[in-house]
């Protein structure tokens, strides 16, 4: 404004002022130039980028798109199976390997926005739970129940193994393994101590018999060996859940109602609390699946730990010094004649319901997870036990495993597989896991503080803590009007 006014005044002046005239010309040009260049640049960029967006060639790959989780140790099995399937079907498969968080974000974004998503998605259990939070129609996966029935597969899949992938009466994913659990123990340490593990049936017997093995080796006043690896905080809550499920406890009833504060759950966390309470601490938390955790296991820091079928492969990969020193056994029961197994994690393969190639995707699912040859390869190379009961008579499961001192590891897992407990498919299972694991940890602190040494004396406090956990989860679940419907 000032500039224009100034120019106007100056232009009325008759006296010639060369410097003012030059300044005027330069400033006018500069102003014009700035304006036009700015406008041209902005408009040009907008037009070019807009045109690029509109005219950009569609790079969508041909064939099926398969998002799979990042597990390097069984990649080869997938590669071979996919190559076979491509040759058989004359179709392409584009595999994208994703981390859990990346897969979760991309999948959720696609489901929410209706944007293109892969034809097949493989994911871990923890991710799948979040899919169930909304109304049934918002579950982005295809209900596979009819396809399973049509192909006669529903009757030959180990039913408990389908539980985490099922919601409101529909099956949304096929499990890759049974994920049953056995107890791995250091046979060299146990046998040296003259302990007969075959005689142990219950957790009480296990703890009582092996208690002398908790030892202070270096004389610093602290034990250097514990009996059982057990998550004591609430990083995942999976370890406490494993034992609760084994005991027949649960966090949700079949209708999805929160039932955390139960007798069974109180009994189990009371025992776990006592096992972890000082000064007679028997269990210890180690960072599993890390270098540090592996080193501790190699060093004999714990005598025994719970392993699922897929975790035995981890042992072979990362606990090589233990080859020929470790044995497996059914996990001790909570009472004589009780269940000797549990379940830990898993993966599934599902088909997004917006996919254009449902039949082909289903065909690939069957190839990757339910094909006899691939299932054999999966056991031989990654120790995973197929959930297909019709394949359990395969002699490969009877092969002695030198890592486990010649035990027929596959058969041991299969013998327990029908007893594997169901994992609830509640949207709030992860929160419940953490809440109960926190309750167990607080109960342990309480036992230490009060010097309590019998689990019966902990029951009332256990119920109090479980009631708190239940109230918290119920508050979360009751808020969800989609599930109430």
């Amino acid at each position: 404004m000032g500039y224009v006014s100034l120019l106007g005044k100056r232009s009325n002046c008759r006296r010639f002022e060369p410097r003012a005239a030059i300044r005027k010309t330069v400033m006018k040009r500069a102003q014009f130039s700035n304006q036009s260049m700015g406008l041209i640049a902005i408009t040009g960029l907008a037009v070019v980028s807009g045109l690029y967006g509109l005219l950009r060639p569609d790079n969508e790959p041909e064939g099926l798109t398969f998002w799979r989780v990042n597990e390097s140790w069984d990649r080869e099995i997938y590669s071979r199976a996919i190559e076979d399937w491509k040759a058989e079907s004359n179709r392409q498969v584009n595999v994208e390997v994703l981390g859990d968080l990346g897969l979760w974000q991309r999948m959720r974004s696609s489901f929410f926005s209706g944007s293109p998503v892969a034809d097949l998605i493989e994911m871990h259990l923890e991710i799948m739970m979040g899919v169930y939070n909304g109304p049934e129609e918002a579950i982005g996966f295809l209900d596979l129940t009819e396809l399973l029935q049509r192909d006669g597969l529903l009757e030959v899949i180990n039913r408990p193994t389908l539980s985490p992938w099922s919601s409101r009466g529909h099956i949304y994913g096929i499990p890759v393994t049974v994920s049953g659990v056995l107890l791995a123990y250091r046979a060299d340490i146990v046998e040296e101590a003259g302990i007969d593990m075959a005689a142990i049936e219950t957790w009480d017997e296990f703890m009582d018999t092996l208690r002398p093995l908790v030892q202070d080796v270096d004389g610093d006043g602290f034990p250097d060996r514990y009996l059982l690896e057990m998550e004591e905080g609430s990083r995942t809550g999976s370890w406490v859940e494993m034992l609760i499920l084994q005991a027949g406890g649960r966090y949700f009833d079949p209708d999805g109602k929160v039932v955390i504060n139960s007798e069974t759950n109180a009994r189990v966390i009371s025992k776990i609390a006592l096992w972890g309470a000082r000064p007679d601490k028997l269990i210890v938390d180690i960072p599993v699946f890390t270098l540090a955790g592996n080193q501790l296991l190699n060093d004999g820091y714990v005598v025994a730990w719970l392993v699922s079928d897929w975790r035995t492969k981890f042992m072979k990969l990362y606990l090589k010094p233990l080859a020929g020193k470790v044995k497996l056994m059914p996990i001790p029961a909570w009472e004589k004649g009780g269940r000797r197994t549990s379940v830990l994690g898993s993966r599934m393969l599902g088909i997004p319901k917006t996919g254009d190639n449902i039949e082909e995707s289903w065909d690939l699912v069957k190839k990757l997870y339910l094909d006899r040859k691939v299932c054999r390869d999966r056991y031989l190379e990654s120790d995973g036990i197929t959930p297909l009961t019709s394949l359990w008579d395969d002699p490969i499961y009877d092969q002695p495993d030198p890592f486990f001192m010649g035990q027929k590891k596959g058969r041991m897992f299969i013998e327990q597989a029908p007893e594997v407990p169901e994992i609830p498919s509640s949207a709030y299972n992860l929160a419940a896991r953490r809440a109960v694991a926190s309750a167990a940890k607080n109960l342990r602190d309480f036992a230490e503080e009060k010097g309590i040494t019998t689990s019966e004396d902990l029951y009332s406090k256990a119920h109090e803590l479980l009631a708190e956990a239940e109230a918290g989860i119920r508050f979360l679940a009751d808020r969800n009007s989609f599930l109430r419907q």
Partner: protein
Amino acid sequence: MAQAKYRLHNPLAPYLFLSPFLFIIGVFFVYPLLQSINLAFHQTFGPGFQHFVFLDNFLNLLHDPLFWKALRNTLTYAVATLFLQIPMALGLALLLNQPWVRGRVFLRLIFFSPALVGPVFVGFMSTLVFAGRVGLLNRVLNWLFGFNPDYAWLQNHVMGALIIAGLWMYVGFNMIFFLAALQNVDGDLLDAARIDGAKAWQRFIHVVLPSIRPVFGFVVLLSLIGSFQLFELPFVLLNQSPGPDNQGLTIVMYLYQNGFEIGDLGYASAIGWVLAVILIVPTAFQRFYFGRKEEN
């Protein structure tokens, strides 16, 4: 005449220049802001499924024990930031501003380096420090004092571990602001105070502190906002969980859990707006208090 002609030819020019800025602000700030207000009155499962719940989200927050736990944790961390992090940053800056300290440039880099690698790396390194049995802290304490090598810091002292990790991460970062401010303190004033017989602490209280007050206020505000937005450190340190008994749950972690794990963007928006209101208080105080001081 020239004035009139100029106006006739360029009436839209200012708006054209402003339009990219307005477009970006509108699309990426104003619209999301309005949408988040709208969402806060809905229960959602992604953008496709919404129920209008009016004030239920905010009323639920009032009775939500996890929200109050997250608020308590966040406030604890913020207080620690105010009373530990900032004094330590200022102390380090004062030390590294002394000409007699050798290797000052190198030390500045060392203290600032956690800010270069970011909170995810610091969080991960902290897990190695605080781990039981194999953790650096337990090893050192066991070697020095015969401390229990299995002590689980990340079970029993989650907030303490978080505060220490936060100190590691941000003390050096804040130190840089204080260093810059200290180097701008008028030397003549310090000389005059020295000649008048003022002792070191008197020079600090009466000359240095008033001179760096604007930067001090800025750092306090920045740290407070950062504390209330704490997310990555506990997320990594506690293995993507809120820790035992939710001891490491912060407001933004709770927002993330609700919005991106459970999928209720409405509840997450309500948490976000409560957080925004909480942050307005210190911001307004800072502007009012330090603004008035500057005017004086």
